[in-house]
């Protein structure tokens, strides 16, 4: 119990003392030690524990009335207990106040605990930084004081305080707090490192490239904190509900107290009974259990996602993930590695595959285009640079050069046609680069982008998690798109798109999500955040992949996957579903118990004891249920 705050300790002491006094009074009363007709002394004896345990509630009640804030919990509890006292039910009055406080104590303890669990999760903020001074010494400074260009020394096991680049030293850094990835990352001089990662065994010297406030770690922390303020629909619903629920129940209580006696005209004997039932109503009318359970579940869900290296920018986005109907995905860099590789080479009669590759590599040797890089990397036996002359680049079409004295062309089908070169018209999966020498076709090199190793499994898991449709969008050719789609089991794809086409397609798909019948069905878009920011913001949920260190993607997306792993997406859908089911269960349970108590209370079956247990018990059970989200694993 060392984690209790000062206020909690004080409350606990008060509760225990009052509980003992109350128990002594009850026992003495039942043992007949107290006079039968309750005199002033007995009433006073009951008032002592009542005020001891409830004075702050009563104080808040009067302050609330003075400030015009009726209908808060304190007001309701005070009214209910005063009502009970008025009816001569001393025991019940004290008990209600006592157990109300016990419940409040548990609530505050449980919430504090789960808050602590989340803070611990987000315990990635560095507490200090070692700055190298001009004379070579080291001073310990607050991360806030880091300036761009400072040389920072990171000892083994310490957190990197600001985004920077390594000057000296190499080693492994642990990025798991940020990415959920357990494999440490190797860094060496010249590499970029990100704040919040933990240094491994070796000393690293880095130059700060960003001030602390602009560093990744601070941005992430701010995002998680802000997430709680973007409320889910469920939470807004409950807040609105509470707004009407309490006054309605209080109104019901007033009717219950006065209507039956008015009808019967008997304001003497029966009246007390009805007032007591009305007090039961007041106890049940407290809305806090409801109001707390929903955000707690979402908070836990966001926490659980961040443990997976997934940042969810708001409860509303988590809610949408659970209702994801259509998932639109970018191809290059998202489903695929984003690096082109030579897939196959075909040679015309009289040439070998090696020769085709060798001539093509010679032509492409001066280019930095990803396709050129793929071809030059694949060729092991390159022409010397002296044999390559007169290079000419035709953007978007191809390249020509004179290799070993003969004009050689490498390019797409259109480029060959323009040069009057006939090519075979077989459709190969991938991007075809045709090679020609001396005006004659000599072979084809197929370059393709490889799907990520986990992509197939991820597609399967996403569909299994309840997403109805996955659509792949790409600027690549039809044949390249089909090859990837078939390999991954994606049935719907659109190829040859320009970036601006993608927004239009996403808009059409949003209209079509859930066949336009169910507005709850949502559309998500996954991209790498580099050139698809407009699409990310247009989709209901924009998911950016591999975003560690990319500010633009973090800015544009609603959900940020820090590493490159596609399997995080089905994992987040699962977390979202679980969060929704927990908060739904909480709401259903709390409402059910409350309405049952209201009915039983009106009939006089449930007394104030039952009511107070229902109220605080429901709150505690809802909190515990929500905590499953946090404590899991």
């Amino acid at each position: 119990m060392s984690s209790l705050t000062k206020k909690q300790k004080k409350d606990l002491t008060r509760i225990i003392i009052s509980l003992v006094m109350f128990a002594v009074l009850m026992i003495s009363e039942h043992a007949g030690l107290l006079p039968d007709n309750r005199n002033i002394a007995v009433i006073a004896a009951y008032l002592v524990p009542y005020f001891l345990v409830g004075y702050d509630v009563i104080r808040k009640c009067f302050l609330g009335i003075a400030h015009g804030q009726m209908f808060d919990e304190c007001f309701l509890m005070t009214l209910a207990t005063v009502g009970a006292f008025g009816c001569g039910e001393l025991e019940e009055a004290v008990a209600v106040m006592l157990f109300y406080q016990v419940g409040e104590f548990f609530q505050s303890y449980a919430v504090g605990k789960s808050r602590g669990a989340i803070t611990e999760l987000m315990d990635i903020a560095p507490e200090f930084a070692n700055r190298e001074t001009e004379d070579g010494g080291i001073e310990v400074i607050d991360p806030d004081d880091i300036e761009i260009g400072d040389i920072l020394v990171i000892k083994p096991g310490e957190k990197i305080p600001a985004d920077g680049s390594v000057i000296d030293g190499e080693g492994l850094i642990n990025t798991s707090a940020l990415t959920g990835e357990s494999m440490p990352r190797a860094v060496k001089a010249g590499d970029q490192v990100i704040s919040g990662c933990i240094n491994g065994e070796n000393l690293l010297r880095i130059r700060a490239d960003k001030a602390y406030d602009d560093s990744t770690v601070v941005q992430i922390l701010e995002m998680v904190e802000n997430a709680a303020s973007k409320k889910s629909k469920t939470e807004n619903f409950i807040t609105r509900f509470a707004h009407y629920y309490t006054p309605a129940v209080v109104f019901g209580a007033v009717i219950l107290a006065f209507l039956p006696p008015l009808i019967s005209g008997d304001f003497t004997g029966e009246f007390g009974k009805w007032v007591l039932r009305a007090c039961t109503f007041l106890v049940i009318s407290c809305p806090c259990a409801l109001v707390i359970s929903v955000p707690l579940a979402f908070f836990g869900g966001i926490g659980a996602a961040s443990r997976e290296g997934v940042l969810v920018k708001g409860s509303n986005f988590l809610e949408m993930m659970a209702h994801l109907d259509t998932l639109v995905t970018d191809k290059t860099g998202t489903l695929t590695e984003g690096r082109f590789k030579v897939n196959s080479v075909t040679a015309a009669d009289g040439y070998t595959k090696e020769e085709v590759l060798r001539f093509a590599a010679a032509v492409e040797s001066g280019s930095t285009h990803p396709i050129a890089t793929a071809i030059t990397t694949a060729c092991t036996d390159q022409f010397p640079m002296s044999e390559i002359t007169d290079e000419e680049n035709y953007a978007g079409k191809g390249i020509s050069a004179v290799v070993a004295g003969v004009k050689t062309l490498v390019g797409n089908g259109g480029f060959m046609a323009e040069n009057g070169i006939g090519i075979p018209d077989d459709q190969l999966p991938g991007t075809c680069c045709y090679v020609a020498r001396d005006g004659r076709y000599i072979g084809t090199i197929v370059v393709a982008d490889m799907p990520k190793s986990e992509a197939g499994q991820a597609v399967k898991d996403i569909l299994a998690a309840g997403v109805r449709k996955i659509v792949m969008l790409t600027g690549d050719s039809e044949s390249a798109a089909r090859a990837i789609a078939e390999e991954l089991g994606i049935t719907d794809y659109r190829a040859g798109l320009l970036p601006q086409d993608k927004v239009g397609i996403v808009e059409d798909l949003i209209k079509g999500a859930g066949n336009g019948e169910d507005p709850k069905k949502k559309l998500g878009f996954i991209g790498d955040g580099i050139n698809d920011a407009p699409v990310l913001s247009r989709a209901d949920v924009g998911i950016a992949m591999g975003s560690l260190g990319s500010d633009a993607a973090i800015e544009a997306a609603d959900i940020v996957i820090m590493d490159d792993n596609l399997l995080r997406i089905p994992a987040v859908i699962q977390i979202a579903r679980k969060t929704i089911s927990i908060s739904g269960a909480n709401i259903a349970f709390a409402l059910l118990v409350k309405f049952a108590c209201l009915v039983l209370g009106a009939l006089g079956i449930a007394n104030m004891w039952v009511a107070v247990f229902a109220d605080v018990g429901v709150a505690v059970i809802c909190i515990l249920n929500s905590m499953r989200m946090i404590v899991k694993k």
Partner: protein
Amino acid sequence: MKKKFKLIDLDCANCAAKMEKAIKKIDGVTDASVSFMTQKMMIEADDAVFDQVLAEAVKCIAKVEPDCQVVLK
């Protein structure tokens, strides 16, 4: 300008919702949120009137929950 403040002894979730509602109604506030879970308040308001808005917000909070304190940095 957007600023965040820590709240101490914000004890009830419904109170947080009430505070948020009240603060949003203050003149000059463009956005505000009070989070029970993180015990933080965020106020976004025009620079010129920010201090007045803040003073007003602190009053709102005291009205709803007298024991709750705003940490003003």
